[in-house]
């Protein structure tokens, strides 16, 4: 009887251990075997309002297919040391890659709109469903210069002058009519 109890307890213990291993194997505490390579320049410069394209590629360096891979951007203002809301910067904040076969390489591309002057650092983050820790790329630096308005010095005289000239013509017209009458 005791032998049976010991056998059952051992079996349950082994089963629990196997289950725990299986669960652990599905979501490991290691980053996924992905390599993110930035193909565009390390530092992208421009004036606020300009568009740049961040290009890269993602490769599954592992021996098995990775499922549910998602890549997204993380942008930090290096001046204020605060993360930046990508709302106006990029229409596509994340790219869902789906499954990536072993040794398969997929392209990555983001069109970025420089919204505000300053210096920023951008990384591409990739996460897979089976891994608790994401994989990150190297940093791309943004150097955004202040946008000088096109010609605010010239628009004001035109914006004010034209209606004033028309108003003046109106008064001349009115005066001439009165004189004629």
């Amino acid at each position: 009887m005791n032998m049976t109890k010991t056998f059952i307890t051992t079996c349950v213990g082994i089963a629990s251990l196997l289950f725990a291993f299986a669960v652990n194997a599905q979501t490991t505490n290691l980053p996924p075997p992905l390599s993110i390579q930035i193909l565009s320049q390390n530092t992208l410069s421009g004036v606020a309002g300009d568009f740049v394209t961040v290009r890269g590629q993602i490769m599954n360096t592992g021996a098995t297919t990775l499922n549910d891979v998602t890549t997204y951007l993380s942008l930090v203002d290096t001046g204020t040391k605060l993360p930046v809301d990508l709302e106006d910067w990029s229409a596509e904040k994340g790219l869902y890659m789906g499954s990536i076969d072993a040794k398969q390489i997929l392209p990555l591309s983001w069109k970025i709109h420089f919204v505000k002057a300053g210096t920023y650092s951008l990384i591409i983050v990739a996460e897979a469903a089976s891994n608790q820790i994401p994989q990150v790329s190297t940093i791309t630096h943004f150097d955004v210069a202040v946008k000088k308005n096109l010609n605010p010095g010239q628009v004001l005289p035109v914006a004010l002058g034209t209606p004033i000239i028309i108003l003046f013509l109106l008064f001349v017209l009115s005066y001439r009519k009165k004189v004629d009458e």
Partner: protein
Amino acid sequence: MYFHIWQKEIKGELYTWKSMLWLLISSLLFSVTSYLLLTNKELSLLDQTELLWLLGKVIIGVALLIVTVDASSVITTEFEKETAESIFLSPVSLADFILGKLLSSLTLWLAIFAVSIPYILVTSAGSHLAIPFLAYITFLGTLGVLGFVLLVFAISLFFRSSKNTLTTSLIILLGLSIPAVFSTTLKNDVASQIISRVNPIDNIFSSLDNVLVDYHVSLLQNWQFIVPLIAFCLLAFILLLFAMHQFQRQGVIRSE
């Protein structure tokens, strides 16, 4: 004879406080738009070509609205003030009458265009787009205004009432303007694309986009927008001919 009608119209309609006030209002609208586009922090982030396109749409939109409102009353007031009878008793043909009125409406468009020139020049400074911008605003604006004026004149001869003509014309103008300002993502289905192809206002805006944003400045590169505009003018002209025929059949005093 049409020249005298045009002269009379210029003196009586255009060369007055009322018409000059239209020009003042359009100039104020252009001032606010161009000032905001060039100095407002968010708006000035727009690419200069998109900024010019936006200003072009405002110029054409304001001109079409003002000319449509003016054209809605230019013929009908002759019926409402009962001056039409005396005009047609004099040796003035209906064609001369219409041509004179048409020239006066086109003169109003030219006056609005003249007001817009300083704004076009100041906003396109440094972009090498000033000349294509001016040329296409003149060309597309004239075609658009011509089509609308012919259409409004036809409606005027049918209704012979300012109120009905103005209401119908504004509904048509609004009906064509609203889909024209929709973004391209809202024009993905076949029906929207067909409407977009035949809508004269859409064609004006698309051609301006083609010239200013994509820098396709030759007429050959814009034929797909210009042909529907010319077709619209021809259709409006045919409708006007039909309205003139009906008018001559019914006479100046219509028996209701």
